[in-house]
């Protein structure tokens, strides 16, 4: 399989403690452009849902005059999802509770700027 321009970026994010997967997804159709996930993670379904959540957040913030969404974090009892987007692409990570979310946030926002 041919490597996409995001393979290195995703591999770097997946090396973070507690991160079990990362992918780049199109916000428009919810399809994963590239992914780096551990076995057993339902990446396609999660990618589509993460893209939809990002889209809703973007539209709501637009309607409220709050500007562009820079980062999104969905927390659950044992982990969560982080997302940072640019244009139509959204960078998503899935993490367990032990992940360092502060560090992950900084890395993702920096990486999202490079999405094209």
């Amino acid at each position: 399989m041919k490597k996409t321009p995001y393979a290195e970026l995703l591999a770097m994010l997946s090396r973070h403690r507690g991160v079990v997967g990362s992918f780049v997804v199109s916000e428009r159709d919810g399809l994963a452009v590239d992914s780096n996930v551990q076995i057993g993670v339902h990446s396609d379904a999660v990618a589509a849902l993460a893209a939809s959540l990002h889209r809703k957040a973007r539209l709501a913030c637009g309607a409220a005059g709050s500007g562009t969404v820079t980062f999104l974090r969905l927390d659950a009892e044992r982990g969560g999802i982080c997302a940072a987007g640019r244009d139509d692409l959204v960078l998503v990570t899935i993490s367990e509770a032990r992940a360092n979310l502060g560090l992950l946030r900084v890395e993702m926002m920096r990486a999202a700027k490079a999405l094209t």
Partner: protein
Amino acid sequence: MADEIRRLSDDLARDPSSLVFMPLADALRRAGQLDVAMRVALRGLDRHPYVADAHDVLARIHADRGDLEQAADEWEMALRLDPTHAQASLGLGFVDFRRGNLESAERRLSAAGDADMPGVATALAHVRAALGSRSGNGATHDPVAPNVASMPPVAEPRMPPPPMPEIARLAIPEIPAPQPARAKQLFTTALDGAEQNALLVDADGLVLAGMYTDPTGTDVAEVVAAELAGVSSEAERAMRHLGLGAWTSLLVEADEAVVAMTPAPLGSLLVVASSRETPVGLVRLLLDRALTRARDWLARVS
């Protein structure tokens, strides 16, 4: 006064569902702590919306803040719940007097009934003198300037009122419907500043309670709610796919705002937004506070 407030606060902390919030709010009002008094009164009214005395206390706080319109609304509500509520009649008489409606003020004060009640006789005498002055010399009477301070906005509080027995609650002939204005203001006292918004949205993206304004002050609650329709179910599905447990919060950072969301009862979604300068930890704290308010309110209206 400080001892009284401390004692009442302790009592309320021991039993948050008690009616002790009324004497506490009134003591805070008399001590000049109007913002805190307002919070205590509103929180108490969330639990006891049909207690006339509670509306009377809130009306006094509004009056002390100079908001006569809101004060009149609350006193009218108190009278709807208890048509013999003398303090509410007296309060409305005060409002009428301040607005220059001297005839109406006279009627209200007379309706307060007990001329021996502290303040009533003085207030009546003052209003009648003003009426006489108006009809006697034809001069325009300024209803606000003369000795308004001598007319107490309400008589000394008869606090604490007796707890409302359940039978009396049943005897209320007509339970007021949920008030749209109150639903809009549901989170006002749970927030920390004017630049914050809180909104309760149902599963279909319709506004249940709260307000959301954009930086220009335009009401955008309905459109924001519509855009967020389905967020709760999508978050739930994502977490189910991942086996990470129930979702607890969704935090969105934007250029100009931090928006926090959390699932609320009946499949609804609670949204709290604040300016970008607000620390994220504080936004989450406000979200927790607003969630408590939303839960109580939904339990009551649903």
